[in-house]
Structure formats: C-alpha cells, structure tokens
C-alpha cells in the first residue's frame, strides 16, 4: 500500500493523463518531492521554496493541510491526498 494522490485535470499532462498516482509516505513536502522524481515538473507547479503555492489546496483524507500541520503534515500508507487548485470566483 502507498499514499494515493489525486491529480487535478490541469496537471494530468505531467502524469501521462493519470487522475490518481501513488506516492511515498513522509511529510507533504517530501511527498511532493517524491512525486517530482516520478513526474518531473510537478513540484514547481504546486510549490515554491518549500511552500505549497497560495492558490493550490492540498487535502489529506479530506482535511485541508493548512488546518493540520501545513507542509509538515504527515502522510502514511493508505492516506488519500488531493491536490485541488483554488478556483478564483465568488461574489453573490
């Protein structure tokens, strides 16, 4: 078992069209680094200088990592990680 990572449509070009890929356990930042060795270029799209980009949301088991331990949040085997671009919008 590994960490399941859901890839958003705009980044699937980097994962050969795959919606879901596997990553290795560790912190969120370590996960991103490991994804980048499998799918070069993905790390700079979702992070910058070791921080997740402001308009990218990362969820571990449906919880936003900003409310867990941010980039240091631990992910273990069997966890589900979703990468979701924040959609600009709103205004009632």
């Amino acid at each position: 078992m590994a960490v399941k990572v859901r890839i958003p449509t705009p980044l699937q070009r980097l994962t050969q069209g795959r919606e879901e890929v596997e990553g290795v356990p560790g912190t969120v930042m370590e996960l991103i680094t490991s994804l980048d060795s499998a799918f070069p270029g993905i790390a700079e799209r979702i992070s910058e200088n070791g921080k997740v980009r402001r308009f990218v949301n990362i969820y571990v088991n449906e919880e936003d990592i900003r409310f867990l331990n941010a980039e240091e949040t631990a992910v273990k085997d069997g966890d589900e990680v979703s990468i979701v671009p924040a959609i600009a919008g709103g205004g009632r």
Partner: protein
Amino acid sequence: MGHIKGLKCRECGREYAIEPIYVCEFCFGPLEVAYDYKSIAGDISRKKIEKRDKNLWRYRELLPIDGEPQVGLDSGFTPLIRADNLARVLGVDELYLKDDTVVHPTLSFKDRVVAIALTKAKEFGFDTVACASTGNLAHSVSAHGAKAGFKRFIFIPSTLEASKIVASLVYEPNLIAVDGNYDDVNRLCSEIANKYKWAFVNINIRPFYAEGSKTLGFEVIEQLGWKAPDNVVVPCASGSLLTKVWKSFKEFRDVGIIKDLSTKVFAAQATGCSPIAAAIKQGRDVIRPVKPDTIAKSLAIGNPADGFYAAQVVRDTGGYAEDVSDPEIIDAIKLLARTEGVFAETAGGVTLASTIKLIQSGRIKRDESTVICITGNGLKTQEALQGHTSSPHHIKPSLASFEEVLENIKKGE
C-alpha cells in the same frame, strides 16, 4: 484606447494576452488586467473626466475595454453624502456615505462590475452571459443582460427564498435552480464554464468584471474634490471590492490625478462569516475558511477568493477590521435610515456597525475624514427587519380616533 497591456498573474507574474481566462496556467493564481500607466497618465485629466456624462464610464481610460462602452451607460456616479446627522451621533467630524443603494438599474454596486463584464463580453463576441449568485449579482446580470440583448443563464441554490427569485425572474433570464448550496452552485458553474462558450461574469470574465469595482473609488476621490479620504470602510465578501477600491486610489495617484495618498483601508464583516476580519485581527496570513451563519447573506462567502489580498491591503495601509453580530447589523440599518434617510441592505448594516466599533476603539480617529461604502439597497432584504421595526398606529377613520393616537405620540416624544 490601447492602454491595456494584457493579463498578468498576481502570484507568479506570468503574462497572458487579453482573453476570457482567469487563472494562471502555471501556478493557478488569479489573473489581473495590466495597464500601461505611462500612456494613461498622458491621456487622462481631471478636466477631461469632468466634461463627461455622470456615469462610471467617465473613468474609461482606467477600465479594461478596447472600444466604446456598451452596457451600463447610466450606471455609477452615485451620491457621496456628507452624513452630518450620523456624524453627530457617532461623535466624529467628517463622515460620508458612498451611497450605492441607488446604482442603476438594480440598486447595488454589482451594477458597476456587470457593466464592465458585459461590455467586455460583447467585445469578446459572446452571445450568452451567466453567473452563480444568490442575489444582487443575479439581479444585475439579468437586467443589464436584458437591455444588452444577451441570452442569460443564472444559477442559484434551489433553496433560495421566492422573494429573491422574483427580482431576477422579472427580466426573464434562464434561471437554473441547483439542488445544492452556494458552494455546490459555484463548483458546477466552473465546470459549465469550461464546457460552454459563455461569459460567466464572475468566472472567466472575472479579471475584467472585478475592475468595475474601481469606479466606486474613483468617484469617491472626485466627489471629495479630487482628494482621498483619511479612512475608507469597505464590506468584504470575496474581498475583491476592498482590493479594487484601494487599487483605484493608487491608480489615481500613479497617473497624477491626485498627489497625496495616505488612506487607511478598513474591512467590515459579519461575525457569522468573518474569515478576512479574523485573519487581520489575529495577524495571520492564512485565511481560514468558515461555514457562514449570518443575516448578511450578500457577504456570506466562507472561503473568500481575494481574502489574502484584502488582508494585505488592510495591513499595508495601517487599517484594521471589525466584525459585528446580527443584532448590531439591524441596529445599524435602523440608525442609518433614521439619521440619513438611507435604507441599506444587511451588508450596509455590517459596514456601519463595524465603523462604529472602529471609532469607539480609536482605530478611526474622530477628527479624520471617513467614507463608509454602502453597497446595496435595503428594499431587497426587508425580511431581515421583520419584527425589528416599530408598528403602525391603527385608528378608526375618525378625527377623534386620530387625535387619541396623536396624544399618545406626543407623550412619547
């Protein structure tokens, strides 16, 4: 024209051509219109503006259109009211209301942004306009779109009250009631916007749409006699209006319309939905999303798209934020009506009630000039006041019955 350089990502600075796009392909940051301020500075002047018709297009050099204005030719240039009665109650010297309860045609500041969005939609060649909304935006897209001859799709949560729906339906748009909450509607609309070639004003037209909010700020400066106020208090939903009001002040300085600018920008939210105010008060960078619970429904965005930027503006200008309870909102609506004869929607109550707290805490100084932005009309949210107003005096159709009541009224005074 020719003052627009293109679109630029607010986050990573990547540049794009002018198209109906809104998100940076690289880092997912929001795109913003970039202008050539040098060429605008040579092409704009107080005199030139003053000669034009009194609508929001008088500042067209700083708006993102290529040709002539096509929509909202009577929108904008709402009154800036010197609120001396209210100032006396609050114990301040110089207080103004920017009164967007009377924007043509649907009585909220959304008529400003939609005027720009639909003019841009025409320039892009769209025949259909759309939005996700629960209120003011739906009304404005329905009305402006009718006049401009667009097909219109308005998406709302199906649980919306009948009274709010009528004010859109009267303009005969295609009203789509989605079985879900506002966030579900927004998500669905993003998918639809990807598939159909429609102009979604607050999605793929958002970079242009949002620029319309600047006209409120331009007007404030012109109406104050070409100067910026010491303080401005702005209600926050997505946070876009606040960032754009500040942008308008900076632009007027950068193109030489005004020389000095030291305005402090203050954010107002309802306590039941205050993610931006909370971040400012706690000195945090991160906007923590909330589940809204407030009568100020037009401000109830729990995950505000421009929250980070709004908080940044407040911090950078030395402003602050306040949040207020539902009873405080209602009291403020009544105070505004009683003292200044202006009936604001719940968002206006939020702004005034927050201003009162900011004055009491000394964040807004009593001898400074302050502008309060009132962004929508109270006639649209009358249910919020149900049971909170005084009652009529019931009488028989006789002079005696009237005079009996009159006695009681006089005793009460």
